[in-house]
C-alpha cells in the first residue's frame, strides 16, 4: 500500500508541477506592483480588446472565439483549440510553465509586447470565474 501511495505521488510529480488557477493568479499578482488586486473584469477586457497589430490575429478572440467556454479555432491553421474557460476544460491554468509559455507567445503576437504580471493575473482570474 505504501509503495502504491509513493508511486501515485511520484506519478503526480512526474506529470509536471500541478497548480490551481487561483494559485497561478496569486503568483502573477505577487509579481505585480504592490497593492495590485486581480480583476476578472479587466481580464475580460484584455481578452476582447482589438489590438489590430497582427491582421491575422487582431485579438485573443481570433483563435479563442468570443466566448472562452467555446472551443476555439487557430486563425491560420484552422485547428480546433479546446476551451480556455476552466468550467469547460478542467486542465486549463494548472501548469504554470505551460501558462507562461502561451502568454509569452500569444501576447507577443497579438498585443505586440509581453503582457505584464498584472494583466496575466486578471486574465487567469477571468478564465477561472467566467461561467
Amino acid at each position, binding site marked *: 500500500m505504501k509503495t502504491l501511495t509513493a508511486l501515485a505521488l511520484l506519478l503526480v510529480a512526474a506529470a509536471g508541477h500541478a497548480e490551481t488557477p487561483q494559485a497561478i493568479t496569486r503568483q502573477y499578482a505577487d509579481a505585480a506592483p504592490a497593492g495590485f488586486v486581480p480583476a476578472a473584469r479587466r481580464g475580460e477586457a484584455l481578452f476582447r480588446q482589438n489590438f489590430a497589430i497582427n491582421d*491575422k490575429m487582431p485579438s485573443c478572440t481570433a483563435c479563442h472565439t468570443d466566448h472562452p467556454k467555446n472551443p476555439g479555432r*487557430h486563425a*491560420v*491553421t*484552422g*485547428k*480546433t483549440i479546446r476551451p480556455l474557460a476552466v468550467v469547460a476544460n478542467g486542465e486549463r491554468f494548472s501548469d504554470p510553465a505551460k501558462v507562461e509559455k502561451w502568454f*509569452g*507567445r500569444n501576447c*507577443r*503576437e497579438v498585443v505586440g509586447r509581453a503582457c505584464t504580471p498584472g494583466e496575466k493575473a486578471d486574465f487567469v482570474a477571468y478564465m477561472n470565474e467566467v461561467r
Partner: protein
Amino acid sequence: MKALIFALLAAFTVPALADRLPLPTDTPASYRNECGSCHLAYPPALLAAGDWKRLLARLSDHYGSDAAVDAAQQREIAAFLERHAGNPGPAGNPPRITRTARFVRKHDEIPARFWRDPRVRSPANCEACHTRAGEGRFSEHEIGIAELKE
C-alpha cells in the same frame, strides 16, 4: 530467414497501407505536445530529414509564429524526426509537407477552391478533411467534407 520473411511482408504491406500514417510508438511526449498544439502533430515520414532539420533550426520564426521549445526538447524532437523522416521529395524553403511531390500527387484531384474553403482554411489543416488524421488515418473513405467524398 526470419528477417527475410519480415522484409518480404513489409514490402507487401507498405503500399497497401499508404493511407495509414500513425505516429511511431517511440514518439516523445514533447513532439505530441509542442508540435501538436497549433496543428496536427504531423507524421514524420512526410518530410525528409534535411527539411525537418531546417525547420527545427528556426522555430522562433515558424511560418509567422513562435514555436520555440527548450533545448532538451529540441534535441529529443530532432532525434525523433531524423529517425523517422521519409523521402517525399523537395519541400521548398521554409519546408512544407503540402509542397512535396508526394502530397501534391495524393491530392491532385481536389478542386482548387477546397484549399481556400472556410471549413479547411489551409492545406496544412489535414484534420479538416481527414477527420481521423489524429489517429494517423488518411483513407479516402474517412473524409469529412461531404462534397469530396466519392
